[in-house]
């Protein structure tokens, strides 16, 4: 259906790829990555707004590598509202049909259908000024879909929206996409968004897809510490796995965690979700409460250990508040822990750790950026 083969693109010192990707008909594929990872560049390469230096882009079975954007049959919704300000809502949606010289009766018919599907029938004869962000993006979606694209590209389309509009539109997008069965590539930096929408996620970091899988795979088994950080593992700590026979233990300065048999002896990294850290009395690791913050639905607590600090999210249900400076004992729920061996592209220094917003003197490997 859609395929990229060994795509390479360079701008200045940034290199995207070599990158290969294959989508099934009707699949919702999300490219997730931090800003500067090359997400938008990748979409521009697929849409033809940029030309690749090497590699092939195949859309609906045809090699599109040398086609200009207007002949690639893709639809795209951008981050920013890019409705044409001199046209009404109707004329905006009609744009892609009229440039193809479709008869006006067919234009009306198609617009009526797509407007119903996207819930904007009541807006058709309005000017595009004074629309809400959510309305604008619905219209942009209708404008992209009305041309029957074989591939729909969505470049962080919810970014400019407030939370309510975002969640509402997210659900609608999935419904519309399923109903039309249109193959979709969605770009976001937000894992929650990706998880709700996608059949499959590819994590793009520094121009490379470092992991590909279902939202569940990525959530439970992030392949590298950068992926782990993107999906909400607030605690990332380097250490060493020691094996003796069947049993293996991950050790860092403060933490010892039993690991699966598939992790070899050697340097490793542990990812711990903040929800997995809890307080107990007796048998726990000693810690001092360093920060406490009440957040919607949970309390965020930072525990200081001998060598590291751990961030935890405590559900409000328990409602046992702690105070800064208090000495407590904590433990880690192994269901919220994932250990990976260190290898090329996934290394941290000895006992280096990365906490979510925790002030430390440990440096975080920076992402390279691209403008």
């Amino acid at each position, binding site marked *: 259906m859609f395929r990229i083969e060994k795509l390479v693109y360079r701008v200045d010192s940034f290199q995207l790829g070599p990158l290969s990707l294959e989508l099934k008909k009707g699949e919702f594929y999300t490219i997730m990555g931090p800003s500067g990872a090359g997400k938008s560049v990748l979409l521009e390469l697929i*849409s*033809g*707004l940029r030309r690749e230096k090497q590699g092939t882009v195949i859309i609906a079975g045809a090699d599109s590598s040398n086609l*200009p*954007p*207007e*002949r*690639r049959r*893709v*639809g*795209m919704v*951008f981050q*920013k509202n*890019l409705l*044409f*300000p*001199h046209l009404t809502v109707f004329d905006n949606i009609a*744009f*892609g049909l009229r*440039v*193809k010289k479709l008869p006006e009766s067919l234009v009306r018919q198609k617009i009526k259908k797509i407007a119903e599907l996207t819930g904007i029938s009541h807006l058709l004869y309005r000017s595009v*000024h004074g629309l809400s962000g959510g309305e604008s993006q619905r219209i942009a979606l209708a*404008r*992209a879909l009305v*041309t029957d694209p074989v591939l729909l590209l969505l470049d962080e389309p919810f970014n400019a929206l407030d939370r309510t509009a975002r969640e509402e539109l997210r659900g609608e997008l999935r419904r519309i996409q399923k109903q039309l069965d249109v193959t979709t590539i969605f770009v976001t930096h937000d894992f929650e968004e990706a998880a709700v929408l996608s059949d499959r996620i590819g994590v793009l970091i520094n121009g490379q897809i470092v992991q590909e899988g279902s939202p569940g795979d990525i959530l439970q088994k992030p392949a590298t510490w950068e992926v782990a950080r993107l999906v909400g593992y607030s605690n990332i700590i380097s250490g060493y796995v020691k094996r003796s026979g069947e049993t293996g233990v991950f050790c860092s300065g403060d933490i010892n965690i039993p690991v699966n048999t598939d992790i070899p002896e050697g340097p490793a990294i542990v990812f711990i979700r903040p929800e997995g850290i809890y307080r107990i009395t007796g048998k726990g690791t000693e810690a001092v409460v360093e920060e406490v913050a009440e957040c919607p639905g949970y309390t965020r607590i930072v525990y200081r250990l001998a060598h590291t600090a751990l961030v935890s999210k405590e559900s409000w249900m328990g409602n046992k508040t702690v105070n800064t400076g208090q000495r407590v004992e904590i433990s880690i729920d192994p269901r919220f822990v994932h250990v990976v061996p260190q290898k090329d592209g996934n290394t941290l220094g000895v006992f280096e750790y990365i906490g979510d917003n925790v002030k430390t003197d440990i440096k975080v490997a920076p992402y390279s950026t691209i403008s």
Partner: protein
Amino acid sequence: MSLTSKNGVVGVSLLSREKLLTGIFAGVGALIVIFLVIPLAKLVAANTPQVLLETAREKEVMQSIGLTFRAALYATLIATLTGVPLAYLLARRHFPGKSVISAFVDLPMIIPHTAAGVALLFVFGKRFFAGRFFSSLGIHFVGDVPGIVIAMLFVSAPFLINQVREGFSLLDPNLEKAARILGASPWQVFWKVSLPLVKRHIASGMLMMWARGISEFGAVVVLAYHPMTAPVLVYERFESYGLAYARPVATVLILLTLVVFIGMRIIVWREKKNVPH
């Protein structure tokens, strides 16, 4: 909201400080407005309505004003056809020598206009290449309407080109990208998206250029003293008969130009209300 300064004296409130700035700026600004308006107002007021009417009925005066308006219009149309594509390239593409071309576009605005006229004569005069070529087609520049048109074109085209270029630069290139993905060819994008969105800039650029063309004296007089444009006529009456004779002609020219200019402004302003940018 009052402030206390360090030495304990209660300071002026923020609001009255703002008023102070507004007041001083208004006073200073008024000086320049007075300077600009008084001579024109005095010129207009110095004429009795009868004299103005008589002048307006004078064949020579109306012919020269008509000629001036027409020549400026031709110059504006030529500059629009050639200048809009140039402005688009200057705003949208990167190419070697772009800054040099930009500088050349601005050049006519800074050189003395009589010098511009002389320079044009060196190309379009009968003894020179372009002059000879056009002459064979029956188009003469020296002492003829085409000469007036190219003089106006030369000195006032930058106003149009710069204004249109500004319009294209303010246009978000992503709108053009969105149109491409929707299936529009580069030509369709230009006609259906870029051009309609800068039409206000084009209109006001044309208006600026046209007005500047009407007022041109230096370059026009070098190429064509006759047929006489309105500024040349004003000058001639002043030179030959003195202030009293130049005044009514100048007044009629100013009033007519104002009427057209304000009328066009209103049209452009209405467009702007329809298409906020």
